[in-house]
C-alpha cells in the first residue's frame, strides 16, 4: 500500500509580497523531497508563476481574497495545488509565446514556463467558485532522499 503523502499547506493573502514567501517554501519542500538543483529551480519557478496568476490575474490583487497553496510529497512525485477565488482561465486559449509574431510580446510566457517545467499541469474551475491549478513533477531518478 502506498504511503500517505507528506503535506505542506499555507493560505496567503493576495499580495505580491507573498510570492517570495511561496518561493522560499518551494525551495524547502523541493529540497526535502530530494529533487536535484535544476528541478528545484524549475518547480520553484512553476509555483511562482502559478502564484502570480492566482494573485494578479485570478484574485485581481484584492487583499481580501485568499490563495491556497498545497504541496504533497508522494513516493514517486510532488503535487502542487494553487487555488484562488477568481473566475478562472482557459489554458488552451493562450497564444503560443514561441510563435514568430508573439516573440516580442511583453506577457504570456507564464503558463508556457509552467508546462515546460512540470510533468503535468491541469486547471479546474471549482463548483463553489475559484480556480485550482494542479502541477505534478515526478522523480526522474533515485535522487529522492527518503
Amino acid at each position, binding site marked *: 500500500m502506498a504511503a500517505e503523502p507528506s503535506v505542506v499547506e499555507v493560505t496567503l493573502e493576495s499580495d505580491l509580497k507573498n510570492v517570495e514567501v511561496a518561493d522560499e517554501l518551494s525551495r524547502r519542500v523541493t529540497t526535502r523531497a530530494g529533487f536535484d538543483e535544476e528541478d528545484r529551480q524549475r518547480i520553484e519557478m512553476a509555483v511562482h508563476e502559478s502564484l502570480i496568476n492566482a494573485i494578479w490575474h485570478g484574485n485581481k490583487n484584492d487583499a481580501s481574497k485568499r490563495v491556497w497553496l498545497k504541496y504533497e510529497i508522494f513516493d514517486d512525485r510532488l503535487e502542487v495545488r494553487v487555488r484562488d477565488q477568481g473566475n478562472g482561465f482557459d489554458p488552451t486559449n493562450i497564444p503560443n509565446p514561441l510563435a514568430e509574431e508573439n*516573440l516580442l510580446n511583453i506577457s504570456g*510566457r507564464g503558463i508556457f514556463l509552467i508546462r515546460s517545467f512540470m510533468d503535468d499541469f491541469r486547471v479546474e474551475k471549482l463548483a463553489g467558485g475559484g480556480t485550482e491549478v494542479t502541477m505534478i513533477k515526478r522523480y526522474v531518478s533515485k535522487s529522492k532522499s527518503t
Partner: protein
Amino acid sequence: MSMKANTRQVDSVTVIDVSGRITLGEGCAQLRQLIRDHLSKGNKNILVNLGDVSYIDSSGIGELVSAYTAVSNQGGQLKLLNLTKKVHDLLQITKLYTVFDVRDDEAEAIGSFAKQAGA
C-alpha cells in the same frame, strides 16, 4: 532581495549593472523607469549586465523584451551581458536568445556598439 541597479557610462555606452530579483512588481517597474530615463536623456546604447541577477520570472523576461523594443524603436541598441545559467536557460526556452544580442565579455560588448554604429 529586491532589484538594485547601478549605472555607469563607458564611452558611448550606458552600462546598467542589475542585481537581485527582476520580478512582477517593484523589480520590473524599476527597470522600466530606468530604461525610460536613459532614453529620455538620449542614451540609446544600453548594455544590461545581468551577472548578479539571482532570480527572474516571466514578467522580468517581458520587461527585458519591452526594454529591447523601446530602445530599438528609438534607433538605439540594447544588449545583454553576463547571463547566469538560469537566465540563459530561460532565454533559450522562450526562444529569446536569438532576439537579444547576448555577450559575455564587457570590453568586447562595448566595442560592438561602436562597430555597429560605424557600419
